[in-house]
């Protein structure tokens, strides 16, 4: 109906965009391009670069360990993203439903977000350490043997739990705003119709919150792929039996433990492609299901 584009000086707009674009190009795009270049070289500290063509990629293509790492990363991301969104939604919903103590509940559930991942990891180690953990005893008394230093699936679960736990706060911050934005009259209509609890959440709030949820899915995906490094590094170092060797850790190890920069760069490129493809798929799916779409 009307327009916000009230200025039209190209020079001004260019000047305004310059800092962001400059930083993006110099520190984001340019290094990414360099990484792409390095991926065709054999490169390490103190040694001359040697062009090796696709050799680094060939190595990745033929490495079953790396394939596994890709699969693990994707599954891990899926578990983390779904877990975070579901738990956060439910929590947000519960908080939205109560009238008293909202503020207190909110702060109590979002604080882990303020906690540095490294600390989060240490605390989790403390709690679930297979022999020394605070909760190990109680859990084992339920008949589950806590053994995630040896048991891959358990390690995966522990790392995923820690990662989910840490990210809930960020999601709740956005979700509570979105849920509060749902017009009261919709809630009241549902209430009058006797549309209760979960059904209201799933059938009314969630669809209306799709833009926020989509935003969070994107952010959470990036988090799952890149932001969970500390958990793997400090909890499992990718083990046991590579069960938690997600791409980012794999890449870090290749680059900064083994100093194989060429291979590491190739892994960066693969990681970038994997995340890019997933994002693309997500955009397509949400485009289809977002209620605004038609």
């Amino acid at each position: 109906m009307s327009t916000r584009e009230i200025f039209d000086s190209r020079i001004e707009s260019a000047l305004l965009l310059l800092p962001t674009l400059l930083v993006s190009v110099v520190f984001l795009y340019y290094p990414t391009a360099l990484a792409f270049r390095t991926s065709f070289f054999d490169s390490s500290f103190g040694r001359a670069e040697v062009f090796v063509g696709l050799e680094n990629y060939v190595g990745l293509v033929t490495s079953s360990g790396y394939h596994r790492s890709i699969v693990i990363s994707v599954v891990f991301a899926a578990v983390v993203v779904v877990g975070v969104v579901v738990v956060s939604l439910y929590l947000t919903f519960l908080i939205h439903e109560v009238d008293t103590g909202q503020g207190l509940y909110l702060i109590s559930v979002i604080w882990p977000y303020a906690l540095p991942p490294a600390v989060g990891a240490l605390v989790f180690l403390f709690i679930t350490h297979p022999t020394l953990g605070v909760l190990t005893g109680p859990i084992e008394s339920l008949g589950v043997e806590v053994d995630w230093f040896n048991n891959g699936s358990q390690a995966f679960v522990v790392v995923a739990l820690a990662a989910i736990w840490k990210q809930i706060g960020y999601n709740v911050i956005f979700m509570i705003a979105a849920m509060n934005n749902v017009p009261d009259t919709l809630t009241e209509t549902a209430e009058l119709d006797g549309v209760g609890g979960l059904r209201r959440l799933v059938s009314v709030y969630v669809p209306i919150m799709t833009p926020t949820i989509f935003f969070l899915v994107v952010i959470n995906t990036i988090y799952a792929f890149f932001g969970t490094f500390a958990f793997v590094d400090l909890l499992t170092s990718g083990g046991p039996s590579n069960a938690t060797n997600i791409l980012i850790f794999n890449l870090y190890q290749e680059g900064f433990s083994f100093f194989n920069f060429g291979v590491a760069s190739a892994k960066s490129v693969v990681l970038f492609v994997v995340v890019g493809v997933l994002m693309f798929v997500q955009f397509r799916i949400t485009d289809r299901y977002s209620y605004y779409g038609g």
Partner: protein
Amino acid sequence: MVEVLQYAKRRVDALRGDHEARRIHEDDLGTHFQLLILVVAVVFPIAVALAVSTKQTGVITGVGDLLPGSYAVENYREVLVDYRFGRFMWNSLAMSVVIVVGKLAISVFAAMAIVYYRVPYKDLVFLFILFTLLLPVPVRFIPLFQLMNDLGWSNTILAITVPYLASATTVFILRQHFLSIPTSIVETAKLDGVGPLKFMLFVLLPMSKGVLVGVSIIMFVYAWNQYLWPLIIIDSEANQVAQVGLQLLQGDVQGGQLSWSLVMAGSTLTLLPPLLLMIVFRKPLLETFSIQQK
């Protein structure tokens, strides 16, 4: 369970005796109950960390050990004085403040150009900025590391701040917010011939206070929690940040000494600044983020 709740409700009703006070909905108690369980689950880890930070050696192996110990003062003193952890915190603070202020400034510029200027290709520019979401440090840390060395920035605050300044998330959120400012207000400014600088300073920024504060908190937490990149690029102790510095509290790892209590004391200290910010600014943090389509 249900019976207990119903009983509790009857008791409450009986105590109230009339309609004077607010009617507590049937589901309220259940909701509070669920919330309490979830809150305990979320808060438990930090409770453990806190308890540990007050112990002598800090090994806790069961729920029974969770009572606070008597070494709190001693441990925190040791961390702050002997390990000069304050120094790391200070470095973290400097880094975070520079990142937050820098990000905000240049993102406001960019978002303003994108929303309020009628210039060609700005959607493309926005996409170009958004795309950097896919290029987090891990994808490019090897060349970035090299770039820092070439610039002579390694071990300086520049290395841990400048590359972070471009912020897709901030630009995205600010753009969302700018789009929610009624066009008629913007057009009034245009009719009055308010120039871009004046518009930004006197209209846009004051009307964005909440979002700016909210984004600042999120960005602060993000910056404060950086771990991987400082780990790589900062190797002199004097410039190290708290997240990485935490590891130094572990004590003589090679020698088998693991001073959990010090690590947890450090962790608690590290948590404080972002947590305080979140508590103080919880209103803008929880109320201002709305993500709409487009």
